[in-house]
């Protein structure tokens, strides 16, 4: 609730969205985990799939497609998507760098890591580089306090960070063609 949620709330000018066949199959498999009549339970996992298939964010079109898959009212999807911090309601860069900034990380120097990334990429937390490659985001405790400071990019945790490690990671990500998603296996 803390940060202002600046969602893009229109489908105008936003690319259309449709689930891939493999994603639909995965959705069906997830729905089967829950008792009959309780398919709404699958909403969070399916939103993750939609986000991964929509360049890392949830457009109105993507959320409407989720509503259709689960037979929900659109608002039931919007109200959930806007509650959880891992759903991006605006486009993000190809590589979303989520740096933990909660107290145990601060004690081990996360402030310096946030500043270093910001300086290196020329952006502030919440911003995306002009080339669309990187978004820097500060997040709350990721449960990696013993290996702080740390950041998450897609499914991966990058831990015990130093400015040198961050530089190497950024260079490595520049050469990657694929987006890192939470749902990566």
């Amino acid at each position, binding site marked *: 609730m803390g940060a202002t949620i600046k969602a893009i709330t229109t489908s105008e000018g936003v690319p259309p969205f449709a689930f891939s066949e493999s994603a639909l199959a995965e959705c069906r498999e997830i729905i089967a985990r829950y008792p009959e009549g309780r398919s709404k339970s699958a909403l969070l996992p399916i939103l993750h799939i939609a986000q991964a298939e929509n360049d890392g964010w949830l457009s109105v079109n993507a959320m409407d497609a989720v509503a259709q898959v689960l037979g929900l009212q659109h608002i039931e999807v919007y109200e*959930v998507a806007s509650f959880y911090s891992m759903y991006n309601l605006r486009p993000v860069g190809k590589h979303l760098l989520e740096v933990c900034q909660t107290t145990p990380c601060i004690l081990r120097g996360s402030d310096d890591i946030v500043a270093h990334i910001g300086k290196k990429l020329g952006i502030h937390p919440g911003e995306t580089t002009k080339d669309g490659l990187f978004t820097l985001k500060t997040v*709350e405790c990721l449960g990696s306090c013993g290996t702080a400071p740390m950041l998450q990019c897609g499914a991966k945790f990058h831990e015990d960070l130093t400015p040198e490690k961050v530089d190497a990671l950024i260079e490595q990500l520049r050469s990657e063609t694929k987006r890192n998603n939470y749902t990566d296996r």
Partner: protein
Amino acid sequence: MGRKLLLEHDDKPGIQGLEVYRAHGGYRSVEKALRTMTPDAITEEVKKSGLRGRGGAGFPTGMKWSFLAKPEGVPRHLVVNADESEPGTFKDRYLMERIPHILIEGMILSSFALGANTSYIYIRGEYFYVSRILEKAIAEARAAGWLGRNILGTGYDLEIYVQVGAGAYICGEETALLESLEGKRGNPRIKPPFPAVKGLYDRPTVVNNVETIAAVVPIVNDGGEEYAKIGIGKSTGTKLISAGGNINKPGVYEIELGVSVEDFVMSDEWCGGISGGRKLKACVPGGSSVPILPAELLFRTAKYEQRLMTYESLSDGGFQTGSMLGSGGFYVYNDAQCIVRSTWAHARFYHHESCGQCSPCREGTGWMEKLLHRLEHGHGRMDDIDLLWDIQRRIEGNTICPLGDAAAWPVAAAIRHFRDEFEYHAKHPTKVRDPKHFEKEPMVRVTRAEMA
């Protein structure tokens, strides 16, 4: 070296997989339980063990299980709380990542005891990769006949599913977790009814922490009485502690409850002392929600007794001079750290994570964050300190769920023990604008040990 019940084999290569896990005694408790014990007998052993909820509240697990309503014809559920989001806590991640099968094994025992045939693990979205490890372990266990229909030919059926969250601390609160598992916003429910009567899909449900469920494995293997022999008083068994902050050896340690706090911090067996050759300043012993303890109250209680790693000893002195064992998220501050800065970060966390249902929490957490931000950044006033005190007091106890209390306590404890530091911030605005203001010039505090 103390006994290890959960992490005994965490260093064995391949322990993530079923074969190696089996080779180290894995799943033998399931054979024992399903073949020779009744569900009630398992609950009885858990009661005898004195096991208390390892998520933070420390409520006796056997008692929680005994509250479960058992109406005829209504399915019951076990839901494992793997939403581990309490700042400072990373033990469940470690356990699930290293030894996923111990959670599955514990879930089979617990589900059998509770009469549940479908159980869920709700894991925080940030741990997506851990959910893959769990799913793999579940598939392995299923293929080997430990899950599915008619387990070991006993007629007992069980399916386990993993559900990922999407970034919300509040979903660690059990009723918010159930809402989230039902595909809704994580707004805690008003209690009663408790989940034991109306939980997931309005069915009787038990929600337990990962570590709690894993601890059922040694309890069934060795018996509740054996488990209760470890520890002191009502703090029985072993506990996973997530050690972080300014120590030489951060990590997850399994300790026998009753180790002294001083040994835990200073001994090379565990934290290995304070890092950077600096002095100990303070410690949050049980996750960010519990009161911070200044150095002079960490190793010794106010009565100057040795402080121990137990539920009772850490809370000795109440909130005036004590704290809580909580989730075991134990993080240490050295003397370069600023209490106002860390309290501001705590307040920011709770403001970000408040679900917004109750106005004292929704408005109060934001107000506290703003006041602490301005104090830390050199724009604060002396009367901000009393205002902060007043706000936290009005949040505590006035909300549906304990997040309000959890937001209030760290602020209250910081002011109670470090008021001089808050006053310093109001008095020296230009000095504190440098974020590392205490690195070169720590605030000198005279400890009772030095006074003596």
